[in-house]
């Protein structure tokens, strides 16, 4: 799509990032970059460390190394501060608040921000207009939504923080193909209309490469390959070796 990757200003820059769970080291020096307004996809097999990378960026796991977002060093910041800066995670398996209502879920998206009650209400209305199904179900408990609806809710909740960039962890996981398509449609719209940058982790390489500008392939905690999404998609050898299709 864009060929301006190198000229566009950098939004997220990751430099030699390490992360671990207790004694188990999972990331061994990951470096990557996402430009302003760019869609980047991160591919890799199960257990490669994709989710860990996103959690490390959000300040949810023990990490060390350089992470710069919008010019600020966020490598040591707590998750609340990172959300406030506009870098928001949509976690694997949605991570909605099953026992709370849809509307409360949305409000929680703005929790760490300084938004006033009426601003929060306005954002929430806006998101319910964007995802009408959430509007219809606003007083229902989130746990009662279908998988696709929950994914929309998770994305909507992330938008409540007025992010500049979303980190999406396998948004298509467990969804029917048609629903997956509509989720990706939504992401494309968000990107195109709001200029949101996206870093998407996906197992569904084909679909995600379709909307991405650039791709990284992670294996065993290290970036092995990177390149424009199109060239990765077109390189059969690469696809065979890393993406398995």
């Amino acid at each position, binding site marked *: 799509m864009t060929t301006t990757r190198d000229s566009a200003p950098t939004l997220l820059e990751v430099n030699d990032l390490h992360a671990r769970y207790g004694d188990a080291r999972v990331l061994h020096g990951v470096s990557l970059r996402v430009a302003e307004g760019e869609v980047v996809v991160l591919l890799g097999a199960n257990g490669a460390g994709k989710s860990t990378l996103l959690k490390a960026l959000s300040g949810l796991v023990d990490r060390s190394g350089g992470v710069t977002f919008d010019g600020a060093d966020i490598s040591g910041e707590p998750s609340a501060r990172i959300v406030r800066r506009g870098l928001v995670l949509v976690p694997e398996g949605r991570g909605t608040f*099953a026992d709370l209502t849809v509307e409360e879920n949305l409000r929680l998206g703005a929790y760490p921000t300084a938004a006033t009650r009426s601003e929060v209400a306005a954002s929430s209305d806006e998101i319910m207009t964007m995802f009408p199904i959430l509007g219809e179900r606003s007083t229902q408990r989130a746990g009662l939504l279908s998988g696709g609806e929950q994914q929309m809710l998770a994305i909507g909740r992330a938008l409540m923080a007025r992010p500049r960039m979303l980190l999406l962890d396998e948004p298509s996981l467990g969804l029917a193909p048609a629903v997956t398509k509509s989720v990706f449609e939504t992401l494309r719209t968000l990107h195109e209309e709001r200029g949101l940058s996206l870093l998407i982790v996906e197992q569904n390489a084909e679909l995600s490469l379709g909307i991405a500008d650039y791709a990284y392939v992670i294996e065993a905690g290290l970036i092995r390959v990177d390149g424009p999404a199109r060239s990765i998609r077109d390189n059969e050898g690469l696809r065979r070796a890393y993406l398995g299709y």
Partner: protein
Amino acid sequence: MSEPTRSTRLRPSGRRAIGAAVVNLIVIAALVAIPLFFEPFRVTQFTQILVVALAVMGLNLLTGFTGQISVGHSAFFGFGAYSVGVIMANTDAPMPVALAAGTAIGALAGAVIGLPSLRIKDTSLAIVTLVFGASFPALVNMFTGLTGGTQGLRVERISPAEDFPFAADQTRYYVVLCAVLVVAACVLLLDRSRTGRELRALGDNEIAAVTFGVNAPRLRIGVFTASAAITALAGGLFAVTNGFISSGTSFVTILGSIEFLTALVIGGRAILIGPLLGAAIAQLLPAQLGQESPELAHLVYGVVLIVILLLAPGGLTGLRPSTWFRSRGPELPPLPTTAPPTKGSTA
């Protein structure tokens, strides 16, 4: 920081096993020698420590093997003590028979409380046992005619025959010591047996254990019964060594349960030394400080308990010098695992 798990404890291999055996033998030798070197007042005090240690060994059977907490073992102690006291006051039964009966009644009470423990676990079980323990003095007071209630009940003490080589205090001490050593040996055998392994498996992961063919209900009731029986025996021995019990005796109130639990935590899970060490600290610390003020002693006791829980989760016998100098690495923030799929979780 790795938590010592139930499945790895108590099974030292090779050199460690020999070391443990040597330490145990030295401790036993010291225990045997104690009454020969101390004045009767001290021997009586040590007897009481052994009684508490025995009660703690009973609790250890439940908590150590299956990871369940009982805050009601003071009631089992009480059942043992009052059974012995009431039987001896009202019948001609000889003391050993009374002790056996007291143990059996304690076992029965354990089985009755153990029955709900098939379904009631963890916090709920702690609550049930706490209420059980807290109600026991009231139960005693309900049958004042038999038990003497708050006024108490005199119990005939163990007294040696004329030509016996030991004095009364020494005899009492050795009787209790015998019970402690026999019970410790039994628990050790249990620990090494297939049943012991099954029990620990049950404590670690019940579902997995059941999948491998462990008969969970039988084991749970069994261990609860045995645990209660041992503590009841301790209660019975308390009655016949102390000579007096009342509904205000701290061992039969909720304070007793707390003391047993605290001693267990302080001592750690080593089968013999843990309860002994814990009981000694639990008994001596308040006694030493208590000359100043018993309340201060309790405060120190609570602080020690918390500090040990925070700094030495395996109790004092779980501390091994080799681990003191090993660098542990920084504590990591809690792991953010994403919520499980929400399907059906709100039904």
